[in-house]
Every structure is written in structure tokens, then in C-alpha cells.
């Protein structure tokens, strides 16, 4: 039996029941569409986090407070173990190039009639190097600003755009939780995504702690090692020093968490990966539903075409020919549905990227996966009906009304 006849017969059967074929495919379209869109969102989130972490350089260590009894999760802000004293002590370690302490908090911004809630980060002069920030205009916050507790602010690109539009914010007075700050600079855009520096407002650390929030602790200490090679030693030395300073006994766990950029990357990838897998598996359930729909229709089709099967057998079709014919039909429906679903998923991902704050990247493996799974669904759910057709007794099939 040549393949073209199998293909033609599948096409005839599917084309003669257009609405039914389309409805059957719908399950597959929605299923693969959802899977592709979810994978696209997950991959996009992963990629944007990765670029940002990578852009900060490989020799960067990040220290965050962590509750000693915690189960490993990073709960910055909830624990108040890191201080400026820690930061000062860390800066004296061998192999350390710069130490950038920061503390962040959420505050209400107001410029004229415009309001915005944003993350306000208290920083010292070291932040520019540590986070690889570049100025679009104006000047950055210096250590002197920190010493003098100046009420000045440098804006992230998104904040500047939302409050000022195209006008220059330099020299204006920005209200942060009711306190007036003079805007002295704007950072260049770093790219959108989760916890982007573009969404932050930077003020001197001392001002942040004493004037705005009345706190002494830090949310993060970034350490820039002199080289990537030195960073492992610096990490170990920093842990020893902090344990000493925090007076931790040998049997006590760290009340802080030191991570290199690579480790940060791994953690973030784990989080986004788990998230993507979870959402993806929910979406995959609809593929199974789609497969059941195909099986249902194929069973109907086998019954409707019993006489045709009998005739084909009478003129010489072997059982395997009949099996292949119906299996092919099921796979065509599921693959076509899968292909349309991939298109739909792409569209949904693109739509989310253009309307939402999401970065979406549909990875190549998602396409291969979606189409592969579609074909597999067609085979798994098509083989039952196809076997039923192939097993028909030709005498009975020919008499079927």
C-alpha cells in the first residue's frame, strides 16, 4: 500500500467532515498552545534573569540575611542581621576590591501630580561598579553623599520615564514618602524583567536608613572580588568573618547567605524551572483531553466506515493497511492540531511580551516537544480505534448497514 493513497484517503475523510475535524483538533490546539506559551514565558523569565546576573560580573558575591532556623529559603528583609559594621569589616578582607552595602524598601514617589510606588534602595558609591550600572545623565551617588546624609536621588530608567515622560528629571524635587529629594542623575536602561534596577530609585544609604525608614540593618551586601579566581577565597573569608562578628557558635547555622553569581543563577533557574514545569504540566493535561477527543472521533469514524473497511479488505487490503490508514488519520489530526497550537502559543507569547511586562522567548525545544508530543498523542490514542478497524471480520464488515 503506497503512502500517497493513505494520505489521500485520510485527507478525503477529514475534509468531508470539516467541522468535526476542526473541533477534534481544538483540544490539541489549545493543549499545545498552552504548553508552548507557558514554556515561552518560563524561558523568557530565565533568560532575563540570567542576562542581568551575568551582566554583574562573575567576581561578584552577594550576601543576604537569612533566618538561622529557616529552611534554606532566602528571606531578605525579614531578618535583620547584616549591618554597616559588617560591610566595613568585609571591605578590609584580602582580595576584596569593593563592598557595596544596600538596603531597600518600598516607598511612595510623587512628582507634581504623578504618583508611583517603587522600590527605594539606599546605596553607597560602590554600587555603580558592583551592579555594573551606567549613568544616562547626571551624576551617581558618592560616598560623600552617604556621609553627609544628602537628600539626593538617582532614578532607574523606567521610574524616570513614568514620572517625567521625556522631560529631564535632573534638578527637580522628587517627594519620597513625603521627603523632598533632589534628582541628580538617571541610570541607563538595563532591560525589563523581575526586580529590574530600572524600576528602582537610588538614594544615599545613610539617608535611606535614618531619614526614610529608620532602620539600621542592610538587605544586601555586594562584594566585588579583585578577580574571579579570588572570589572563592573571599567567599570563605567573608563567611568566617561574619560568623565571628555575629558571635555564632559552631553548632549554629549561618544567619546570612553568601552566594556567588553562578550560585545565584542556579537558584533562580531552579525557581523558574519549577514554576515552568508546574504550569507546563497543567497545560499538558489538556493534551490528554485532546487525545481522548481524537480517540472518540476515530471510534465514530471506524463505525461509520465499517462497510468501506469491508470493501477495502475485499479488494486486497491487509489488516496492517487498514491499521495504518486509521492511525495515519489520527496522527494527521493531532499533528495538525499541534502545529496550529504552536502558532497559537507563539501568538500568545508575543502578545504577552508586547502588552505585559513579560519577556517571552519560545525555545526551540518547545516546538520540537510540542510537535513530538502531538504525534505521540495521535499514535497513543489512535492505535485503539485503528486496531478495532483492522480486526474487523471482512464478512461482517461487508454486510454492515
Amino acid at each position, binding site marked *: 500500500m503506497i503512502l500517497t*493513497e493513505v494520505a489521500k484517503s485520510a485527507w478525503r475523510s477529514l475534509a468531508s467532515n470539516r467541522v468535526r475535524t476542526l473541533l477534534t483538533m481544538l483540544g490539541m490546539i489549545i493543549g499545545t498552545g498552552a504548553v508552548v506559551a507557558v514554556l515561552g514565558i518560563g524561558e523568557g523569565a530565565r533568560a532575563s534573569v540570567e542576562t542581568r546576573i551575568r551582566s554583574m560580573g562573575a567576581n561578584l558575591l552577594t550576601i543576604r540575611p537569612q533566618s538561622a532556623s529557616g529552611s534554606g529559603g532566602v528571606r531578605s528583609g525579614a531578618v535583620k542581621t547584616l549591618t554597616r559594621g559588617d560591610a566595613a569589616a568585609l571591605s578590609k578582607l584580602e582580595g576584596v576590591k569593593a563592598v557595596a552595602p544596600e538596603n531597600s524598601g518600598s516607598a511612595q514617589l510623587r512628582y507634581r501630580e504623578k504618583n508611583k510606588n517603587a522600590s527605594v534602595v539606599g546605596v553607597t558609591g560602590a554600587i555603580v561598579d558592583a551592579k555594573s550600572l551606567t549613568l544616562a545623565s547626571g551624576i551617581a551617588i558618592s560616598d560623600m553623599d552617604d556621609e553627609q546624609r544628602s537628600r539626593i536621588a538617582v532614578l532607574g530608567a523606567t521610574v524616570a520615564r513614568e514620572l517625567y515622560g521625556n522631560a529631564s528629571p535632573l534638578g527637580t524635587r522628587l517627594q519620597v514618602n513625603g521627603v523632598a529629594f533632589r534628582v541628580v542623575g538617571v541610570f541607563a536602561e538595563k532591560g525589563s524583567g523581575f526586580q529590574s534596577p530600572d524600576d528602582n530609585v537610588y538614594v544615599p544609604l545613610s539617608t535611606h536608613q535614618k531619614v526614610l525608614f529608620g532602620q539600621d540593618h542592610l538587605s544586601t551586601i555586594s562584594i566585588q572580588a579583585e578577580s574571579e579566581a579570588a572570589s572563592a577565597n573571599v567567599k570563605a573569608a567573608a563567611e568566617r568573618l561574619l560568623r565571628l562578628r555575629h558571635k555564632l557558635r559552631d553548632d549554629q547555622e549561618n544567619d546570612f547567605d553568601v552566594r556567588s553569581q553562578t550560585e545565584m543563577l542556579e537558584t533562580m533557574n531552579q525557581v523558574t524551572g519549577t514554576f515552568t514545569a508546574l504550569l507546563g504540566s497543567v497545560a499538558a493535561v489538556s493534551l490528554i483531553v485532546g487525545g481522548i477527543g481524537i480517540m472518540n472521533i476515530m471510534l465514530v469514524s471506524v463505525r461509520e466506515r465499517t462497510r468501506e473497511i469491508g*470493501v477495502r479488505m*475485499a479488494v486486497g487490503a*491487509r489488516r496492517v493497511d487498514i491499521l495504518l490508514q486509521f492511525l495515519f488519520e489520527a496522527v494527521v489530526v493531532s499533528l495538525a492540531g499541534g502545529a496550529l497550537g504552536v502558532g497559537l502559543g507563539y501568538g500568545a507569547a508575543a502578545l504577552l511580551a508586547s502588552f505585559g511586562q513579560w519577556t517571552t522567548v519560545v525555545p526551540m525545544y518547545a516546538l520540537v516537544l510540542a510537535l513530538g508530543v502531538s504525534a505521540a498523542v495521535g499514535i497513543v490514542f489512535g492505535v485503539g480505534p485503528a486496531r478495532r478497524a483492522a480486526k474487523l471480520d471482512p464478512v461482517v464488515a461487508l454486510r454492515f448497514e
Partner: protein
Amino acid sequence: MTTPTLFVDKLEKVYEAGSADLAVRAVDGISFTAQKGESLGVIGPSGCGKSTLLNILGCLDRPTAGTYRLDGRDVQDLDDDDLAAIRNKHIGFVFQSFNLLPRMTALENVELPLLYGSVKSSRKLAAEALARVGLADRSKHQPTELSGGQKQRVAIARALVTRPSMLLCDEPTGALDSKTGRDVLDLLLSINAEGTTLVVVTHDLSVARSLRRVIQMRDGRIVADGPAAEVVSAFIASEARAS
């Protein structure tokens, strides 16, 4: 002596129905041979086993006992795939209800057996078969666009496209008016005259009479086997006595 097209010896088909004494003997020990080029009618009342015999001769069904040789080859013990190949190459079926596949043109219907047989230049052979039955100009038409007689001609073209040794016809004129039926019968006879063995199961005695030989069946057995005119006349006489 040449190999007979059909050699049937003590053929039985028994349907088990629970216990042995409830078994139905649809074909109960039938023996006959048919030479190449013979035209053979099978007559008898409904339920006499004609259809079961036809299914076995057509390799759609297997006998429970006995020997069946088609073109000298034992077929009673072949597996499903071999039977499919025999049906494809050695037998052509013509049904009462035509059994053309819908949504396929006449040409595609005729071509189908060649595709299952993986025959090369199937399109050309199908066109030739369609021309043989006088429907070359209808090759692009679908079954719904053809008259009953034309449909049966397409079915006959499909049956003879693989050049089988035997045409098996089940009431080939049963769904046609008498004029069209006569034309279809003439077509079958002319194909028979070219050397293809013809077996026709029919209720229509005028059809049976136009064949060379007729077998009369009753209760799964052959009760008469001879020249068509004799068997049919005897049959009519016995029917008249019975009523």
C-alpha cells in the same frame, strides 16, 4: 488436463452455537470443480448456504473442514495476509449494492486494488479497465454522480483490473432495472468469454439461464449440478409441484 480454477472437496462451514447439536451446518459437504473460463450460477432459497459458500470461495471466510483449491493452490489454511493477497490478485468481487467508496472518483475506485497490490503504472491500468466497461468518459465522476448501471460497471472494472482468474458476483443485477441488468449481465458474459471464470450467485432465474452451468443448493448441500437450462427447468418444475 489443466488445473481447474476452482476445486472444492467436502467443504464444510459449521457455526458452533453453544453445544454440538445446536451447531448450524451452513455449508455441509460440498464438492465441485470449475474449469478455467467456466460460467457457473448458484441458485437456491434464502438460507441455503449460498452466501456462506460465496464468502469461502472469495477467501473472505475459511471453511471449518474440507479442501478448497484456487488455481491449484490450497487456500483453506492460509493466514489473513495471504488471503488478502489472494483476494487482491486472483478474485474480483461484484456486489449487489456496488460498494464503491464514496468521495473517490470512478478511476480512483478502480485503481484501489492495484494500490493494495503495489502494482506499477496503476493509473494507466485503471483507465484501461474503465475503458473496457465503456466508461472512459466517466473517470473523473464520483459514485454519487453515476447511475446504478454505471456504478455497477465501475465495480466490474474494479473487479477485473488486477486480471483475476475468477469474478465472484453476488446478485450483480439485483439492484438494477431489467434493461440495465441485462446490459451488466452481457458485460459479465463478454468478460467470461475472454477467459475469466465467472461465478454468479442469484435469485434471478433468467440470469442463471444465461450461464453455462448451474448449481442448485438446499440446506447447505448441492441438490443439482448441470447445464443451466436443465437445472433451471427442473427447478421451475419442482417449484410448481410444491405450490
